[in-house]
């Protein structure tokens, strides 16, 4: 059995990212889209940490960066959910297909 | 507080803090109450209808079953109404025994209300400590009447029996102990900051509203309305006793609760005075009344201050030995009438606080 290398993590990350992207593109529920975005961000985090470990093990840049990613993700979820709730209160819907007011 | 869609919540009829089978259909927005619709009648037994086919004496046990927590006061209201109808004079000693047993009943009821209110707010220990003393009160009542709750002690023209040997001393002893107990409740429940935070300025009632909605008892007096029938229109021999009417300031849940606590102290005072005075009174405990009671064709309304508020009996006689119509003005029932408006805008936890502070007993609400 081959040892686990950087490639494994990169592939895992790519697959996770794709799954998340698929969700973002195809889910109807706004909350579902939000959590799929979280999946994508996690995929990014895997990459960051894996590169940090394999490429620059003593610098921790990747880890610190992913801490910031996590921070941003938390903020994003908070604000995103707030927006969804605000929209829901006005429209009684979280269906993204209904949110087409950008179209004139 | 975040808002949600409005939704319904069936608060009861099987709910730990509705004090029986009572239902409130709450319309909620988050935890905030938008509308509250009280639904009662789960314990309706048709006592008013039953009374029409019973003789005057036979109605007495049914009155017990309304406010079973202060049964003596219910009996008293009824028998005094019938006595008024027939013009019967009650012997002195019977009057004193009525006062003592009635005030003991009130004490029992208020002890329960105090304890259960602590439980409603979440303090279990206060509940059981109050029950400990209530047990002593009920032991005394049991010794006097043979029953613990549904006393059926009053009779038209007097009371069923004279006090047993040594009973008055036992009452006196309990009365001497009560202030200490009440201090303990005040320390454990009343003085607690959390309790006060939960109850102060919750469910406030202005005096005008309270009067307009015919609220009575501690609920009315907590709003600062000095209206206690024992003082305003003394019935029986209440004018012989020196006591105060505790009043609230804000008309909130805390005042209603604390009014009851202070009323207990006043009850103790009344009983102590009654025990002092009864020693000089001797004689029969029941007036000479005919075996078959046939009041003249008339109607009468008589009201007394029960533990929950003003209980009134409207008795119509058609000259036969059975009442033509008996109606009871039940304080718990009428005190509940303002519940909807009182609850609006408060949280679910306040429902319990407000409902508990009104101190209802469902046997009386549903009659």
């Amino acid at each position: 059995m081959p040892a686990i290398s950087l490639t494994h993590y990169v592939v895992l990350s790519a697959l996770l990212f794709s799954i998340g992207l698929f969700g973002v593109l195809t889910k109807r529920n706004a909350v579902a889209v939000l959590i799929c975005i979280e999946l994508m961000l996690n995929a990014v985090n895997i990459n960051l940490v894996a590169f940090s470990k394999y490429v620059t093990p003593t610098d921790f840049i990747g880890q610190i960066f992913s801490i910031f990613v996590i921070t941003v993700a938390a903020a994003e979820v908070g604000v995103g959910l707030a927006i969804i709730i605000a929209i829901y209160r006005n429209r009684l819907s979280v269906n993204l297909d209904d949110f087409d007011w950008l179209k004139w | 507080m975040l808002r949600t869609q409005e939704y319904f919540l069936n608060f009861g009829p099987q709910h730990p803090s509705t004090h029986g089978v009572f239902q409130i259909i709450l319309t909620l927005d988050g935890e905030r109450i938008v509308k509250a619709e009280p639904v009662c009648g789960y314990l309706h037994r048709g006592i008013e209808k039953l009374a029409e086919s019973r003789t005057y004496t036979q109605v007495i046990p049914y009155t017990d079953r309304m406010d079973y927590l202060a049964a003596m006061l219910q009996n008293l209201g009824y028998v005094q109404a019938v006595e008024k109808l027939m013009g019967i004079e009650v012997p002195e000693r019977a009057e004193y025994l009525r006062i003592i047993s009635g005030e003991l009943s009130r004490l029992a009821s208020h002890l329960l209300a105090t304890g259960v209110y602590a439980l409603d707010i979440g303090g279990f220990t206060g509940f059981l400590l109050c029950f400990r003393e209530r047990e002593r009160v009920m032991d005394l009542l049991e010794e006097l009447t043979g029953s613990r709750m549904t006393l059926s002690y009053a009779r038209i023209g007097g009371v069923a029996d004279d006090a047993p040997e040594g009973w008055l001393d036992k009452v006196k002893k309990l009365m001497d102990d009560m202030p200490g107990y009440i201090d303990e409740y005040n320390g454990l429940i009343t003085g607690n900051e959390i309790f006060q935070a939960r109850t102060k300025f919750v469910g406030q009632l202005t005096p005008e509203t309270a009067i307009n909605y015919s609220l009575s008892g501690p609920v009315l007096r907590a709003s600062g309305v000095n209206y206690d029938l024992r003082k305003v229109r003394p019935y029986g021999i209440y004018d012989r006793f020196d006591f105060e009417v505790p009043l609230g300031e804000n008309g909130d849940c805390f005042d209603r609760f604390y009014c009851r606590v202070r009323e207990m102290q006043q009850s103790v005072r009344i009983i102590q005075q009654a025990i002092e005075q009864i020693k000089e009174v001797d004689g029969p405990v029941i007036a000479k009344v005919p075996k078959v009671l046939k009041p003249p064709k008339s109607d009468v309304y008589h009201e007394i201050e029960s533990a929950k508020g003003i209980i009134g009996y409207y008795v119509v006689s058609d000259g036969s030995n059975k009442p033509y119509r008996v109606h009871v003005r039940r304080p718990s029932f009428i005190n509940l009438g303002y519940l909807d408006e009182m609850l609006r805008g408060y949280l679910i936890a306040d429902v319990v606080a407000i409902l508990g502070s009104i101190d209802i007993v469902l046997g009386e609400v549903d009659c």
Partner: protein
Amino acid sequence: MKEKIAPVEEIKQKFGYIEVDEQKAVNVPAGKLLEFMQALKDEYELDFLTNLTAVDYPEENKFEVVYNLTSTTKAYGLMVRTGVDRENPVLPSVFPIWGGANWQEREVYDLMGIVFTGHPNLKRILLDDKFEGHPLRKDFQWEGGRE
């Protein structure tokens, strides 16, 4: 037991249409009820509606609705009765005058079947909404009791 009763004679002089019986209770025709009650509250400070109930008199073909009023300031009371036709038991609600009539009128409606016009929420209170009949009427028949 001293009964304190509102100055009935004075009221009688003021309102000619009322009748006062020997118990100093007042009988009011149903048509004048609201006007009379409002006057009682405003002028005689009878601000507390303690009791509201009804009695069925099938022989006289009427219901009698009884109002017991007291005053929280003057410490007197007054009993007011009014008769309602048994076939068409409709009476104006006193809810606008005393909020305390709210549930009491519902109770009377529920058990006696008297309709109070102007009541905000007149529906059954003690009995089930599907219940038929009004049990406190003298001619109410019910099967299913004990024996």
